[in-house]
């Protein structure tokens, strides 16, 4: 910037900033609310923080947390697998496969998770036993539905199917985001459709699939608290079991809330890095772990 050719009054005026009264009022109200909440949290005896502290690492709370994490991981793994298959069916040239996948998404994504959960838990009312019978050979295998549909299994089945409905849409959008030219190029090189899907389309779709999948994982973690309804020993259920005895309801809910927020925070941090990895700028720096870490902590040398 060059100096003005005509020094003089230009530099002598004082700039008076615009007063944002609305902003000030908002700030004052926010501060007041924060103070009120803080006061209540500290002084209201109902919160009873020492009790909450006592239960924070209680063995049965820890077991519940473990169960919640196990549910989240298992369900997410199954949901991604089923969702990918449904998405591929949805994009198939066969009208029947396409319609089947559409109906799947419509139903399992549309019906409330809690209702699906209770339904699967009560599957034995619909199907008393499962058996495989071959003509001329006889029955190979019989099992009572109640024997294998434990609360945990019902929870996994119900929420996996529900979550897979969401994952199918995410994977489908990801696959659609890869240009038609890529599949044509692969085809012209003699790659089969399956090879093209696994080697060309899906790897490129990943940058669109991963970020929303991170969101879904966080969502699912919280949704698993519904399994309390069918008596799976998850985090919330463990806390309920304690406060049903001791009536220390609020402190235990605080403990549960702490653990959910703790895990969500860790997942959010992980998601941030994964998104950065897949959303790298248009100039690709390569894909090694060293590069990602280097990029994250700004240790990469510039050449």
């Amino acid at each position: 910037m060059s100096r003005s050719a005509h020094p003089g009054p230009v530099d002598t005026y004082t700039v008076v900033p615009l007063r944002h009264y609305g902003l000030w009022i908002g700030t004052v109200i926010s501060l007041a609310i924060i103070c009120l909440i803080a006061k209540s949290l500290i002084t209201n005896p109902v919160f009873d923080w020492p009790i909450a502290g006592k239960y924070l690492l209680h063995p049965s709370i820890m077991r519940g947390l473990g169960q919640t994490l196990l549910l989240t991981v298992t369900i997410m793994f199954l949901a991604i697998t089923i969702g990918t298959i449904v998405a591929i069916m949805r994009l198939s040239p066969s009208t029947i496969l396409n319609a089947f996948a559409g109906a799947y998404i419509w139903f399992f994504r549309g019906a409330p998770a809690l209702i699906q959960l209770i339904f699967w838990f009560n599957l034995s009312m619909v199907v008393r036993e499962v058996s495989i019978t071959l003509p001329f050979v006889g029955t190979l295998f019989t099992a009572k539905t109640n024997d294998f549909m434990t609360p945990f299994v019902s929870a996994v089945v119900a929420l996996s199917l529900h979550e897979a409905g969401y994952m199918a849409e995410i994977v489908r959008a990801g696959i659609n985001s890869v240009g038609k030219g890529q599949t044509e190029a692969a085809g012209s090189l003699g790659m089969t459709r399956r090879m093209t899907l696994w080697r060309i389309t899906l790897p490129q779709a990943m940058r669109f699939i991963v970020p929303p999948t991170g969101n879904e994982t966080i969502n699912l973690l919280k949704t698993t608290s519904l399994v309390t309804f069918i008596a799976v020993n998850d985090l919330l259920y463990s806390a309920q079991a304690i406060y049903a005895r001791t009536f220390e309801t609020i402190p235990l809910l605080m403990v549960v809330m702490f653990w959910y927020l703790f895990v969500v925070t860790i997942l959010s941090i992980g998601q941030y890095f994964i998104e950065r990895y897949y959303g790298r700028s248009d100039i690709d720096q390569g894909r090694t772990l060293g590069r990602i870490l280097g990029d994250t902590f700004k240790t990469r040398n510039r050449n």
Partner: protein
Amino acid sequence: MAPKPSYLKDLGVPEDSIVFARGVRKSFGSLEVLRGVDLNVPKGTVACIIGPSGSGKSTFLRCINHLEELSGGILLVDGEFIGYDLRNGKLYEVRDRVLCKRRSNIGMVFQSFNLFSHMTALENLTEAPIRVKGVPANEAKDQAYALLKRVGLADKAEFYPRQLSGGQQQRVAIARALAMNPKVLLFDEPTSALDPELVGEVLQVMRDLAKSGMTMIVVTHEIGFAREVGDDLIFMDNGVVAEQGVPKEMIASPKSPRTREFLASVC
């Protein structure tokens, strides 16, 4: 070499034919894009196809490697139906695997390059030879380096497509097609998406390829290239071959009025 199938003689396919089209038709719904294309491209020659947009030249090119299914007529590449098997006077559609095996003999270069954006230039070249032909990885890599050198990009092997200019991307795309050792190379307006100053480097690679005896079919707007490199010039209009001849003669004195009109508009 396997004996030539007997139908070739019945169809009147010349001995040295690589691409042979007779009455090729293609419709998209009610829109008839190709209305009976006849063409023969002998081994080792370069055929340049020109024509106004919508004349069906790109569609015809895509029919050759079965990216588009024919609606009628016959189309043979090195004596083979690409998407079909002829048995007892009927054309049976072939399985994906067979189609892909036959397609691997036909290289294609696209207007928009279509390099695999998640792979380096080198990986773009080795992917299909390793996966489709089962070439050992080391061998594929050596061959890929040699091809990149041939198109003048030996130093760009580890670059991703996004880090390359349009001209460089198209040269990689040509090298990728060559990596499969195709019998014929199809070019779909290979320079149309390029900045003017990048057109030359791609045309130079194509010129060298033509000199090396590669059979090429080039859909192009580069009349200069067609005149210099082409053995045959084909003018397509309204879904048929309107005129065909030796490029120099045809450009100097076109016979059909439509050709004359088109050449006047592009030269």
